[in-house]
């Protein structure tokens, strides 16, 4: 299994896509998802941070990092 920064795109049967930037350590995760969604050029249906990112926010260390658009 390949680890590290990667983007997984699930292209649904109707052509809509779920774009997921994984294991990014900074705001670049937002940049790469926007890069791909701009290529797809369609309406954004949903946009959110994944649960594991929210869990990390609760730790004292990452709490200080709030303000980054990607935390």
């Amino acid at each position, binding site marked *: 299994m*390949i680890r*590290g*920064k*990667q*983007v*997984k*795109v*699930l*292209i*649904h*049967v*109707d*052509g*809509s*896509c*779920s*774009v*997921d*930037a*994984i*294991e*990014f*350590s*900074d705001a*670049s*995760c*937002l940049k*790469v*998802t*926007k*890069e*791909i*969604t701009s*290529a*797809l*050029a*369609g*309406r*954004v*249906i*949903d*946009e*959110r*941070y*994944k649960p*594991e*990112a929210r869990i*990390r926010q609760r730790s004292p260390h990452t709490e200080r990092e709030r303000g980054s658009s*990607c*935390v």
Partner: protein
Amino acid sequence: MSHFVECETTFRDAQALVAALLDCGFDKLQIELHEQAVPLYGYQGDKRPQMAHIVIRRQHVGVGANDVGWERQSDGSYTAWISEFDSGVGQYASRKESARFNQVMQNKIKQEYAFQVIARQQRGLGRDVSRQRLPSGEMEVVVHGYR
């Protein structure tokens, strides 16, 4: 950290759309690409009011078919012109399984287009792109090479 976006796909890249049509079984010689929109013709050779920049002529679509085309709009997106006969809807709903451009084929074109447009963009940025078709009919694309 992980950021997630769900979005629709809109045809905007003519080259990616042509590549998608090739992936869907059409031959390069069957796909016309025009800078200026050209007229579409019906199954009897009658000129239709619709115009298109990307065209597959009726003889390449099937028996009794009409021209199929995609017209570039002022916002850069492409609108598909597919007759009810060729898409198997309306009065031709009974042949929706056999119609060449039925909903299944239209979805397949959109799916292939989405892959093409992502792969072209990301490979152009020096990244590795791989894909696999899932049993559900969905396609999983993985992009590596981020620094």
